[in-house]
């Protein structure tokens, strides 16, 4: 099979190469890294396009027609590839918003993981700031529906995926709810990315426990909003609303939440939005102790608790948005 380009065979396996999804690529006059396609019949790769050469729309179309979903880059070109993704796709307002969203949410995984593991919260705050800028730009561009975003969301047990999904839902929700171009969507996005920061200090076995938590374990788990808040509260570069999102996203309208058992509007509006987004994504994802729920079941769950656990207006806005396909 030939997909064009100058072919050169490297048949000694794919060690030293990283897979990249075809749909993360877009046309560029000069590629900054070598691009490989899987070799036929052998477990190797074939050079498709050398660095410093262009990658155009026809190339991408041809690759797609040949069913090439995954291409390869040399492992040492990882940084060049990430730069390319941000410069040519994420920041490119001419690129399709769904592609920009997909690239943003796949290309930032390792940066998030490194920042989340870092002892100081500096890296997480910096990550949240940059990520929020791109996320709000993409979602508020106006050509992407909530339904599309939900269909693109991945669900797994990783904090990164959950944080990205909660951020996506919070921004999409606030964008519909407020309908105000001056609204601080970046702030709400940043708070959503940081909302589970305190879980860094919770033992992993507790987060992944299959059985019922005992009182002590439940109490330990319930410390994460306070712990996250305490890590960030002395910083001038985190907005108060974002801090409240971290601290109050488990508060409930009826006062049965934690850590402060606030009721009604005593909870910050951003935290009330994040609470809905958080539960929405948690129910859509499989957990060690239960299976993922269907979209309509999650909508029903939220509607049944609107006004009691969750802000009624926020729930109504979100359930209407997720049911709307346009």
């Amino acid at each position, binding site marked *: 099979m030939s997909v064009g380009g100058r072919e050169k065979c490297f048949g000694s396996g794919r060690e030293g190469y990283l897979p990249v999804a075809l749909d993360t690529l877009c046309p560029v006059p000069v590629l900054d890294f070598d691009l490989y396609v899987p070799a036929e019949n052998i477990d190797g790769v074939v050079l498709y396009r050398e660095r410093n050469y262009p990658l155009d729309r026809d190339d991408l179309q041809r690759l797609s027609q040949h069913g090439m979903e995954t291409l390869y880059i040399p492992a040492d070109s990882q940084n060049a590839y990430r730069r390319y993704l941000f410069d040519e796709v994420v920041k490119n307002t001419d690129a399709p918003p769904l592609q920009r969203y997909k690239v943003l949410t796949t290309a930032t995984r390792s940066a998030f993981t490194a920042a989340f593991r870092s002892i100081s919260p500096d890296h997480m705050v910096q990550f949240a700031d940059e990520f929020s800028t791109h996320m709000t730009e993409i979602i508020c561009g106006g050509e992407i529906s909530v339904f599309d975003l939900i269909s693109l969301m991945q669900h797994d047990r990783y904090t990164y995926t959950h944080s990205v999904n909660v951020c996506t839902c919070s921004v999409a929700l606030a964008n519909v709810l407020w309908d105000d171009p001056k609204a601080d969507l970046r702030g709400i996005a940043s708070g959503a990315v940081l909302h589970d920061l305190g879980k860094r200090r919770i033992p992993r076995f507790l987060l992944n426990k299959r059985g019922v938590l005992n009182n002590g374990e439940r109490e330990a788990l319930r410390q994460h909003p306070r712990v996250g808040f*305490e890590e960030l509260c002395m910083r001038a570069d985190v907005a*108060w609303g974002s801090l409240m999102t971290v601290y109050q996203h488990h508060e409930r309208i009826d006062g049965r939440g934690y850590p*402060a058992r606030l009721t009604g509007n*005593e909870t910050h509006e951003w935290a009330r939005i994040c609470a809905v987004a958080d539960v929405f994504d948690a129910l859509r994802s499989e957990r060690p102790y239960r299976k993922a729920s269907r979209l309509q079941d999650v909508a029903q769950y939220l509607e049944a608790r609107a006004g009691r656990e969750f802000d009624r207006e926020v729930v109504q806005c979100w359930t209407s948005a997720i049911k709307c396909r346009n």
Partner: protein
Amino acid sequence: MLDLRHQVQKLVQAVGPLRCDLQLPSSWQDGFGQAGQLPSRYHERRRHPRHRFQVCAALEYRQTFPSLHRPSGWHQVFADGLSRGGLSFLHGEQLFPRERMRILLPGQELKCIEIVWSGRVQQRCFRVGARFVEQLHKFGQ
């Protein structure tokens, strides 16, 4: 309640006018001034025993966090329990962990405290737990 009024007068003499937003729970209306040791709850880790210590106190606000505006001033609060390491009190407003303030208890010196937890009891009433610390945060002095 005569004792309470007397305590407030003493505090006002010491620090000036006190703002009070607190709505005291009905259980407190009759039982003010109780004493005795307080039991710990199952998840609490305490270094020192805690005693019931129901007195009126003055809490001084200063700037605590960079992103939270706290106008300076004195507030009337009701101390609830006291130990060597800290105290709990009732206040009309939510306070946040790591906020540092100063508190004046009857017959004692002005003390610096750091908020550890704060939970809603009822409307305009939060129970706050704090530990004694050496000093305020540097921008709060």
